[in-house]
């Protein structure tokens, strides 16, 4: 955006805190996926990475891992034509039957709720789940839609000029952390 730049304001979670948050989420997810007819669906791209971390933790605990799908919600957004940058469509892959499943939708940051609204629309195009739960690493508040998460890694208070960024090594970052950036007018 011309005239603005982004500065690092504070670190919400370092690697150890992020690790602990993922542990708490795994703990909370275990009873939700116990039924066997469940799956994780990560929202591209951050949510897909978080979902893979959660599955790795379940496997490390010797728990049977539910199948993983990834969902790109670009084609379902309500703001595609409201001044987005070049719209990039990432890969969607739900390689199993969704009908009757317990779906755990996974995202990295829950903010306005619009992404989740779009994800629900995208999801039902693939089938009719028995139920859908939501798991997020960070709930930063400021909801614009009546959407809440069932499993939350951490909650924090933010303002609209802030940007909460989950940075993980598999995204090419040097270390795992969650950073709050602030837009600054020049």
């Amino acid at each position, binding site marked *: 955006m011309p005239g603005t730049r982004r500065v690092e304001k504070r670190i919400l979670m370092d690697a150890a805190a992020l690790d602990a948050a993922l542990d708490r989420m795994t703990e909370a997810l275990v009873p939700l996926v116990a039924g066997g007819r469940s799956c994780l669906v990560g929202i591209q791209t951050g949510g897909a990475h978080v979902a893979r971390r959660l599955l790795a933790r379940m496997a490390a605990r010797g728990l049977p891992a539910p199948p993983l799908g990834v969902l*790109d919600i*670009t*084609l*379902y957004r309500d703001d*595609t*034509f*409201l*001044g*987005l*940058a*070049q*719209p990039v*469509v*990432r*890969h*969607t892959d739900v390689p199993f039957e969704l009908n009757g499943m317990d779906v755990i939708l996974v995202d990295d940051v829950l903010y306005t709720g619009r992404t989740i609204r779009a994800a629900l*629309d995208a999801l039902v*195009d*693939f*089938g009719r789940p028995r139920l859908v739960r939501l798991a997020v690493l960070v709930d930063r508040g400021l909801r614009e839609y009546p959407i809440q998460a069932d499993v939350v890694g951490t909650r924090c208070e933010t303002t609209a000029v802030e940007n909460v960024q989950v940075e993980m090594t598999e995204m090419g970052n040097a270390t795992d952390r969650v950073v709050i950036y602030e837009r600054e007018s020049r």
Partner: protein
Amino acid sequence: MSSARMNHLLGLEGVSREQIQTILDLGREFKAVGQRRIKKVPTLRGITVVLMFIEPSTRTRISFEVAAKRLSAETLAFTASSSSLSKGETLLDTAQNLMAMRPDVIVLRHAYSGAPHFLAKNVHAAVVNAGDGQHEHPTQSLLDMFTMQEKKGSLDGLEVAIVGDIRHSRVALSNMFGLTTMGAKVRVAGPRTMLPPYLDRLGVRVFDRIEPAIEGADVVMMLRIQKERMGKDLFPSDREYARVFGLDETKLRLAKPDAVVMHPGPMNRGVEITPEVADGSRSVILEQVENGVAVRMAVLYLLSAHLVEGA
């Protein structure tokens, strides 16, 4: 990223490698949408696409129509026989009347080269060239390149032979522009009467026999011979054309063992291609049709996204 933006798609001449790659990459995701149970996404709700086909075409019009509908756009089809153009109205008058319906995208097929460029200058809508005279047919080339990339992994260094009436083929011209931009090595072949004089400026190798053109090729693309040109000054008969320039299994052995055969359709079986080759294991002709919908979705999406963004 901003250089991947487009206002119109009038041809592939001058379109950058990055822009073409953006369309091909998007095409992959849109192809996946077409393979789902619900083959439709809500992305272009509220967008109106006018399909203005002033020259007969069934498959291209239907392909664009399916592409627009899968994106939830409204479509308005407008064909030569049903239009006032047959009553003498000019293209500009027709277009201005259409503008009253506030279309966002106009897809134009026209017998005159340059008609889409003229339209683009005179209307406030994104214009897509769906074939203009003997000039360009960019979405056909995009679907051809998409199919080649899907089959061969990369277009870079790919040996592509285009055989037939090069002079009158808008498919050939768009492919020569697009493929050379993407780093493919293009050979063209046809009877001398069907080879235009400007080929040396397009960076392609030219042959007046089919055999050397398809030798070692990764892709053999056969063009449709327009039968109305037969028996005139260009070529004596379709039987002679089939013998000298038609693709049969014997000639196809000259290409690489894993070469694929393409044709933009509609085919003249027994003229430019034998039924054995057209229906054989190396033919990807029907996949081209499926891929056409996917790349046209990508084009409509990119043009509409930019249009409303307004800039």
